[in-house]
């Protein structure tokens, strides 16, 4: 059944629960495809055939017994290899952890397992999630299924590609400065960076703790809401998780955008590539046609985003990577790649006594100002729409030797992380056969609203129907 790879969660779930499709069949198809495509795309570091098959069999048995199941039951998932998975090697994309096998599951992994999702593999990523292209992986770069000579975006490169190429129906990722939204946009899929504190970070190898968000990739907006329904909410282990109860994210997803105010932040369009700008504004027009009200707004401190981000993030990275000393587990520090070393040195410097006030403290103040920009904007508008990326998916090797150019790939995404607000990346068309994505950014805990906007737009366009030719 070759079209299994085109199924959405919504469709597959209906088939499985009505016993028209066996979870085992779907899982095996996924694994088969993952194995077949991995040589070309390199989206998986580890394929968990045995575990996925036994989970799928369990699901089929439960369904045969008439048990009511979560919509994710039997759905093949890819998990970024930054999430701890009990008894399954977890590398963080780095040779330092080449042989590290966790003794526990990350909170979100445990929730997926409880919902009886089938984890088909651990996906490739820039080592330690440091990167915007996937090229920093110690296990080789992942390739963009729409053009194998181009990058899929990073750092959650493998997760995005596994969904985009039909090897999984959904995949977990992390977004510290754009690591979900950028690859989602480069691979024509939907990616959510939730509000900071919406999903537990427990068990996910920390990059920059005050910025890290646990999110996911799916083909459609509806599917995305289904996954958040499972992962959102306190777990008792992440103290930065909110006590605020999560919404039912699929409920009212079809609600019209009529009367909704959409802000267009001028700073995000000023020097934007003409073609990309054209696509984003076309999408905005679609929403306007559906009844939304479009307003020009300003997020005046946007230009300081990347600078503040590249102080706060490496500072936290330098501390978070200190435990990888090769004494208790993992390999020695010589195994760190150059990007990790660069960030460790940068962060160690910015936290040093005498420099802390000038760098870290100042950056934290800028962060507050950037958040205030968003808070002020959301007094005027309900959501903000802008491009995810300043460029189209770029060529492998194009930016590897120029870290600053690579960092600037995140120029439109880091601000949401600094502000803590949620942002949904949704496909909005193609330029020269390469995907483009837009961000829908909302106030804290407005994921439900973001899904409504994304869903309304997606119903009009259905870009997910355009599959990569692989």
């Amino acid at each position, binding site marked *: 059944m070759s079209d299994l790879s085109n199924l959405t969660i919504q469709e597959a779930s209906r088939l499985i629960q009505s016993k028209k499709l066996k979870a085992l069949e779907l899982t095996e198809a996924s694994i088969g495809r993952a194995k077949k495509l991995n040589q070309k795309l390199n989206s998986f570091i580890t394929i968990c055939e045995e575990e996925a098959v036994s989970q799928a069999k369990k699901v089929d048995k439960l369904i045969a017994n008439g048990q009511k199941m979560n919509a994710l039951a039997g759905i093949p998932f890819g998990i970024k290899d930054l999430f*701890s998975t009990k008894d399954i090697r977890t590398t963080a994309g780095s040779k330092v952890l080449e042989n590290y096998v966790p003794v526990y599951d990350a909170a979100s992994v445990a929730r997926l397992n409880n919902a009886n999702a089938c984890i088909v593999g651990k996906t490739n990523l820039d080592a330690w999630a440091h990167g915007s292209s996937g090229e920093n992986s110690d296990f080789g770069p992942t390739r963009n299924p729409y053009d194998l000579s181009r990058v899929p975006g990073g750092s959650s490169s493998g997760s995005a590609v596994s969904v985009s190429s039909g090897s999984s129906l959904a995949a977990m990722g992390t977004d510290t400065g754009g690591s979900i939204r950028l690859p989602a946009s480069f691979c024509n899929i939907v990616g959510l960076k939730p509000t900071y504190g919406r999903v537990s970070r427990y*068990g996910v*190898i920390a990059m920059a703790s005050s910025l890290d968000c646990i999110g996911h990739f799916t083909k459609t907006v509806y599917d995305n809401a289904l996954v958040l329904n499972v992962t959102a909410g306190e777990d008792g282990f992440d*103290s*930065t998780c909110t006590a605020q109860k999560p919404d039912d994210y699929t409920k009212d997803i079809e609600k019209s955008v009529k009367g909704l105010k959409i802000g267009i932040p001028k700073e995000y369009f000023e020097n934007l590539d003409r073609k990309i700008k054209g696509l984003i504004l076309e999408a905005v027009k679609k929403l306007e046609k559906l009844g939304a009200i479009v307003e020009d707004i300003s997020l005046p401190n946007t230009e300081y985003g990347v600078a503040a981000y590249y102080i706060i993030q490496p500072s936290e990275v330098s501390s978070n990577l200190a435990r990888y*000393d090769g004494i208790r587990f993992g390999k020695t520090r010589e195994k760190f790649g150059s990007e990790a070393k660069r960030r460790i040195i940068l962060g160690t410097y910015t*936290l040093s006594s005498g420099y802390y006030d000038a760098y870290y403290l100042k950056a934290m103040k800028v962060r507050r100002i950037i958040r205030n920009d968003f808070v002020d904007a959301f007094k005027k508008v309900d959501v903000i729409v802008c491009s995810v990326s300043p460029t189209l998916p770029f060529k492998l090797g194009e930016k590897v030797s120029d870290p600053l150019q690579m960092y600037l790939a995140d120029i439109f995404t880091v601000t949401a992380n600094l502000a803590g607000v949620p942002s949904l990346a949704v496909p909005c068309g193609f330029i020269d056969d390469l995907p483009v994505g837009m961000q829908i950014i909302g106030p804290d805990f407005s994921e439900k609203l973001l899904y409504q906007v994304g869903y309304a737009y997606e119903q009009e366009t259905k870009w997910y129907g355009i599959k990569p030719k692989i």
Partner: protein
Amino acid sequence: MKYAPVIGLEIHIELATKSKMFCACSADYFGAKPNTHTCPICLGLPGAMPKANVKAIEFTQKFGSAVGCKLLLSSKFDRKNYFYPDLAKGFQISQYDLPFSTEGSLQIKTEKGDLKKVRITRAHLEEDTGKLTHATINDRRVTLVDFNRSGVPLMEIVSEPDMESANEAKVYAQKIRQIARYLGISDADMEKGSMRIEPNVSLRKVTEVSKVSNGTKAKKELPPYKVELKNINSFKFAEKAIDYEIKRQAEILDKGEVPAQETRGFNEQKGITVSQRSKEFAHDYRYFPEPDLPPLHFTERQFEKIKNELSELPDEKYQRFIKEFNLGVYDAEILTREQKVAEYFEEAVKAGEKAKISAKVIANFIINQKPNIEKVLPADLVSHIYQKTQKTHISDDELEEIVKKVLGENKKAVEDYKKGKDVALQVLVGAVMRESKGNVDPQKAKAMLKNLLTN
């Protein structure tokens, strides 16, 4: 002496909470098999996150409150970054600029008997590290790490450099221990390592101190260096280490040099301090707010509750014992040294009221006879004292009558004694004891017998 010692203390106390500071593992690790009280959190495994122990925070605030500290309405945890194999995460979660409590003080009694205030800079909370053991296994020298201690709540109490002798430092530290025990927040046992002392010692020229203008002392300037002492696991060693250090630094100053700013370890066997780390190699801990733990906010009402729930502290108890029970300062001091003894005393006093045994008598008995308070109930102690006091209730006149009666009834023994048989006296004492039903002090009976026999 030409120099006045300037001594400040950093004291670490492990808090007696059920679970560790940031995870659910048992904090009671003493004697446990290595690495059995561990989990992903206290092992610092990738992805694990801390969850703050509310009880430990409360204990720290309790202690801060007991030593007159201000409790901060807004506080937070910070990361202290340094590398050591016993530090699982490569950083220690501690508190930097917003500790739970600041600016308290403690009164201590100097050797001369004067009262002296020692200022307390802060009391904050952090986590303990794992423990390293150096061993030789199969002819290989190895270092073993036990993470049972990793993440045990550790309170750090920092004093101002207000102490001027090893004795004052010892008395201060003992008082800190006493308060921790009174509050029931730690056993503060130096031998077990649940209390650790790190003195900072330097010397100041006496002339700088004694400059007096308009009757006020000139502002005391701190010496341009300080030496931190480590590896001290008893009060005795703390005193020894400080005394040694004072002598060592004085010799350097005598030569016109300034002692190096450094960390020195105390060698128990040799009774000396040895340089461990000099200023050039001092750590830059790169403190920054712990991003995994949100800032903490408290209310005045919460602080009020903490203050109201404080049990009576040693100083208060001491004053009350003097006032309420008419005890001397010496007795009051001994009885309040440990809360258990103080409570035992008070219960015994209550039990003694009926039998009209005074608090003073009970105090004397507890101090001099040192009954096992774990085994003897206060009421039993009182009846024991009662019986003892009954014995002396036979007056001297009554005793004389008994002795005379005994002498009249034991002519043979009297004659034997007069012939020089000393054994005969024992026979007579025995007879007096029988006659008095044992309510006479045998020594007293013996003395009176002798007296009457020779007259």
